């Protein structure tokens, strides 16, 4: 505000104007995070998906309470009547499978495992990709060439082919399976997805770093003598966190779908007798389809599609949220 140098200005008027002015400006006083938050919830499909995913997460986390039956529990003892391939009914909301287990309960347990696979492998590939991309982009030169060559080689294979071949190969090397578990374990599949999932993030981060390197504030950080490590951690990463978050979301669902696809071809993990995964349930649908037991197909596949649509929408919402351009006059 102006100070009292101006003649003919009463104090009273000044304050009134000041308040008026501040009110008019209140939109601009939001922090970038608040604005991103607003943009996210403005994306209606993403908002709805977030609610659905939130409920689903709660159900899945509290599976011991929300699942009606245990993971291998039969809905009724075979001595009490037929329990195999029951169509949906009060006893089993989504029907039963070939040995009389409740599909609804198994779906909850399965989604729990699948989400775990998706989230862990996504985090791993994002960490690997971010590290590789940041180093390549910031140091450039030999690092950059090497990284780009390696990603080229990794990208030379279609994902499915690469995973199938690598699975067979790495699963036969005993020192690797000693570390990351047997070929049919959950740990192994997570490892597999991580080593074939990082290239996209690496390229993204490298591009971001190269673009940011040209910006003034990085120059300024360099000028005051900040080390490369410091620049990466305190400047580059916060500035590329948005796209990384989007990539993370999308690789969660990528891994879940990949697990189901592998399982569909009988190449998925075998979570063991006390566990199951969405892929295992989807695998069953192949048999179910042939025998006309539609509930074995519809519910697992439906759950997979629901997850895919919701997580994709959340990724889309995040993309909007990190895009500050959407708030400017357009």
């Amino acid at each position: 505000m102006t100070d009292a140098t101006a003649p003919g200005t009463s104090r009273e008027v000044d304050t009134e104007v000041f308040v008026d002015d501040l009110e008019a400006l209140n939109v601009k006083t939001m922090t970038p995070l608040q604005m991103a938050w607003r943009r996210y919830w403005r994306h209606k499909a993403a908002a709805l998906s977030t609610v659905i995913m939130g409920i689903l997460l709660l159900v899945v986390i509290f599976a011991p309470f929300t699942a009606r039956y245990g993971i291998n529990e039969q809905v009724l003892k075979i001595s009490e009547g037929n329990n195999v391939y029951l169509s949906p009914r009060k006893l089993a909301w989504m029907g039963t499978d070939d040995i009389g287990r409740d599909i609804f309960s198994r779906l909850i347990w399965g989604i729990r495992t699948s989400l775990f696979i998706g989230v862990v492998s996504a985090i791993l590939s994002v960490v690997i990709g971010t590290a590789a991309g940041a180093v390549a982009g910031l140091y450039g030169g030999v690092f950059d060439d090497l990284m780009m060559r390696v990603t080229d080689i990794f990208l030379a294979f279609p994902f499915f082919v690469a995973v199938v071949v690598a699975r067979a190969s790495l699963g036969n090397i005993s020192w690797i399976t000693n570390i990351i578990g047997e070929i049919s374990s959950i740990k192994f599949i997570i490892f597999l997805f991580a080593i074939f999932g990082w290239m996209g993030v690496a390229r993204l981060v490298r591009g971001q770093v190269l673009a940011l390197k040209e910006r003034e504030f990085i120059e300024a950080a360099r000028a005051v003598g900040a080390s490369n490590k410091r620049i990466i951690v305190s400047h580059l990463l916060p500035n590329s966190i948005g796209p990384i978050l989007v990539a993370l979301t999308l690789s969660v669902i990528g891994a879940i779908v990949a697990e189901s696809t592998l399982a569909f071809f009988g190449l998925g993990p075998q979570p063991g007798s006390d566990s199951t995964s969405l892929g295992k349930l989807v695998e069953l649908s192949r048999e179910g389809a042939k025998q006309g037991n539609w509930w074995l197909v519809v519910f697992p596949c439906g759950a997979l599609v629901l997850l895919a649509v919701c997580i994709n929408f959340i990724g889309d919402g995040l993309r909007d949220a990190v895009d500050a351009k959407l708030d400017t006059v357009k």
Partner: protein
Amino acid sequence: MLRFIVRRMLWLPLTIVLVTFIVYCAVRTGWHPEETYKRANPRATRAKVEEYLAVNGLYEGFTGFVKGYFEWLWRFVRGPDHWPRSIKGRALVYPPLRYSIFNTLRLAGIASILGWGIGLTIGTLAARKPGSWFDSIANTTAFFLGAIPPFVSGVALQLIFAVELGWFPVAGVYPPGHQGFDLGLMAKHLILPVTVVTIQVVSAYSRFMRASLLEVRSSDFVRTARAKGLSERAVLLKHGVRNAMIPIVTVLAIDIGGLLGGLIITEAIFNYPGMGVYFLKAITNGDIPQLMPYLVIIIISVLIFNLIADVSYAYLDPRIRLD
């Protein structure tokens, strides 16, 4: 530009050798040749097994891998007649591979041309009026369809249109026992698998085109074009679509390589005798002589299409100078 292409072409064989060596090692560790041979030929004598290993250079140990790889490479470059033969009945590997390649190219070709045509058109129309009802419907539909994994949509289409309604054959490219060429019959078999792949391509490219075109349309030179008094159509096509195609053509070229792998799932569901089914059969049998040429062809096509992507990018955008 020419220098860039030549240099990349010179690097290409080296990259191919490096990658195929990695793949060779992976395949050798993944499928133990002696085991798989015995599984395929349960009554084979010890001598037969030894002969198979020796003839195909399937030595053990790292030096054995290196020696075996170069023996394999030498036979591979000499042509299909010299390629190692299948573990089953010492059959030639090339004829079934060739058959599967043509089947896949037919499926992939039809699906991608349809998919790109429809997808790019929808994306362009949607970006013309962002927020309009057409845009909303097209974008949401594309989003939902794109989120459905291909094996789910494949099984769903198969169940509904082949099993329940019986409009189309369930699987294959011809009915069992059919001889010769029959366009109508083939088309009928192709419709469902083509639909599955086309849906994927349309949903990806319509959204991609929309995003790219919206980005371009907000740029200053489009405003300049409108300020010139050009018609909206001319602005959209000459200044919008032309510039929006630059990133898309690049992705398109890279995608062709990926498409060959992505078709595996669709082919398997419809038991369509293409490269995917060939690949699945080879890995189930552990048939290394069948597996290797398939992988090499995939690798070479991906690398070449990557090169095409780079070159077309430079060709479309005069600001890029390759050297």
